């Protein structure tokens, strides 16, 4: 990479006891007059993750489980309520000068879900991609900027002529390519991708996923990939963390997670994926819905929907404990009440 960056040998990103609460209370007057209580959403409630260099770590979960909040915490769009985010051994919460912060920020970028909302409609594509180059002072002359933008456009399989167009002239997939080019402009090491393909059609999704994997190989990128689509996660990830109501319930490498899921919630998620192989087969639908994060259930948050829950699960909150390389937060697994389950998939 361009700058002389002190690289430590530890994980690239480390989240320690990360929490983020949002205050969604009614206004003060309403609280006083109508005696409404304060309401706090525990969007992220204590998460520990380590992401190694060059790997793709995915977070999966249903809407409202806090996975996007984690993404925003990692890049610093939100500050944590508690806990810390460390990037390459540096605590992001430490006070630094703007210049020092900018050096760290350059090394991480984000790709957002909606390519229609994340590009300024009044800027030409050239300027959108050149912005990080200018902001971080990565090029000295206009010629240098132009060459760099053209190089980036080529890397995401667009042409130099596309630079003079506006975002509305592109399809969703092409726009997501522009977002990727913009993210790569500052030569980052770490990309946070928040549902980068969920707004796209499957054939376009395949193009973008292939491109992301090619770029990762070419530049040695590390990804934090947020998605609700398990098949996509299986395809792109090295390790996977499953989230439920602001907490991690299971972390494991991709193969183990999909072949030997431990946590009942992970098993449930895997049961519910509609898969092409399941033609005509009846999925076992799971009862219940994700409870509100304002009032999460006591004990294990999953216990109201869990077929293996007992009294302990209702009272005591399970913590992540390591198990054969992965880690699981479940009393039933810990007590050995839950038999191992091997899953086989038709190789597709």
């Amino acid at each position, binding site marked *: 990479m361009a700058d002389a960056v002190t690289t430590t040998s530890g994980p690239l990103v480390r989240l320690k006891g990360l929490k983020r609460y949002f205050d969604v209370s009614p206004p003060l007057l309403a609280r006083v007059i109508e005696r409404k209580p304060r309401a706090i959403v525990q969007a992220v409630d204590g998460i520990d993750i380590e992401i190694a260099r060059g790997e793709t770590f995915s977070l999966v979960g*249903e809407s409202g489980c806090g996975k996007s909040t984690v993404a925003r915490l990692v890049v610093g769009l939100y500050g944590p309520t508690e806990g810390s985010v460390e990037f390459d051994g540096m605590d992001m919460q430490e006070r630094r000068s703007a210049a020092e912060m900018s050096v760290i920020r350059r090394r991480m970028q984000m790709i957002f879900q909606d390519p229609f909302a994340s590009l300024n409609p009044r800027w030409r594509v050239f300027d959108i991609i050149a912005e990080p180059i200018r902001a971080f002072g990565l090029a000295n002359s206009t010629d240098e900027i132009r060459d760099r933008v053209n190089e980036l456009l080529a890397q995401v399989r667009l042409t130099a002529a596309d630079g003079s167009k506006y975002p509305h002239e592109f399809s969703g997939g092409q726009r997501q390519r522009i977002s990727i080019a913009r993210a790569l402009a500052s030569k980052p090491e770490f990309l946070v991708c928040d549902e980068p393909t969920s707004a796209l059609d499957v054939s376009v999704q*395949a193009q973008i996923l292939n491109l992301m994997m090619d770029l990762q190989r070419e530049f040695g990128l590390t990804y934090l990939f947020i998605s609700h689509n398990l098949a996509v996660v299986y395809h792109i990830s090295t390790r996977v963390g499953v989230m439920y109501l602001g907490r991690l319930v299971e972390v494991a490498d991709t193969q183990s997670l999909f072949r030997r899921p431990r946590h009942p919630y992970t098993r449930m998620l895997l049961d519910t994926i509609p898969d092409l192989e399941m033609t005509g087969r009846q*999925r076992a639908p799971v009862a219940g819905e994700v409870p509100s994060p304002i009032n999460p259930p006591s004990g294990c948050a999953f216990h109201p929907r869990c077929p293996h829950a007992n009294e302990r699960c209702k009272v005591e909150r399970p913590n992540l404990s390591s198990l054969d390389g992965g880690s699981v937060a479940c009393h039933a697994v810990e007590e050995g009440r839950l038999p191992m389950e091997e899953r086989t998939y038709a190789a597709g």
Partner: protein
Amino acid sequence: MSPSTAAAPLLQVRNLRVEFPTRRGTLVAVDDVSFDVAPGEVLGVVGESGAGKSLTGAAIIGLLEPPGRIAGGQVILEGQRIDDLPYEQMRKIRGARIGAIFQDPLTSLNPLYSVGRQLVETIQTHLPLSAFDARARAVGLLKEVGIPGAETRVDHYPHQFSGGMRQRVVIALALCANPRLIIADEPTTALDVSIQAQIIALLKGLCREHGTAVVLVTHDMGVIAETADRVAVMYAGRLAEIGPVRDVVKNARHPYTRGLMGSIPSIGGHAERLTQIDGAMPRLTAIPSGCAFNPRCPQAGVRCSIERPDLMRAGPSRAACWLYDSAGVGAPAAREAARG
């Protein structure tokens, strides 16, 4: 109820053409689409955004938004032509004989009325029931779609239900008058996967019980694979392929369908890269001549860019592709021509 080939089709769509007149000329959003739906059958209609699948559904129930209009073809329900009926007559058919389920359950319910009132209104519009009986039927329907505490929930308003529960209410609304056919347009797209599984199982179970046929419009092949009996694949407003679900998923005939299936990531696969179809679907303003897929097709020949293929027999399915031209002057010849 399994669809039998002997039974007369419940719904016949013949050469349907939907147009949008614009200042820059007429856009053809659905072009020469024909298919049948047998009683009790689930026909999946898939395609990517802009393929015309939702418009096909809207044209069947006569809910095309102006300036969109049916410019040709026929829609025949139980032997009766319905695409040219006057508005008032069509209104009587909608709800009574064709039910509809849309993507977003929040916008298909009126936020100002309790769900019970909406159900009762629909029931009384189509069935000769007293207010008391209609309410009893509403509660019964809510029970049937699996809403716990239906007796009290019937008086709740849509915002008091979660997304999955709202979609159940919409299904209850569609079933009010026991229609023979339901058009379900992306019924599970707005829902989480675990809820999606519940809704699909429910829809499938209810339709089997009532013998209701479903035209299931979605972009999600997974949902189609486990729900539908037959699949119609649409591309750029045309049918690319239609056939039994197993054949289309496992043994796709049309090059587009093959590419589409390959681009879906599957769990358990070891593919390093996904199959990708380069390029994007053409805009309606610039549909290529001949086969609309020819510029992206790896097997395209000369004939493909000149002459538009009709649906041709391809194994148990039918595909609109010159590869399956039984006259033998199809793609093999075209491929040779391309080579030479």
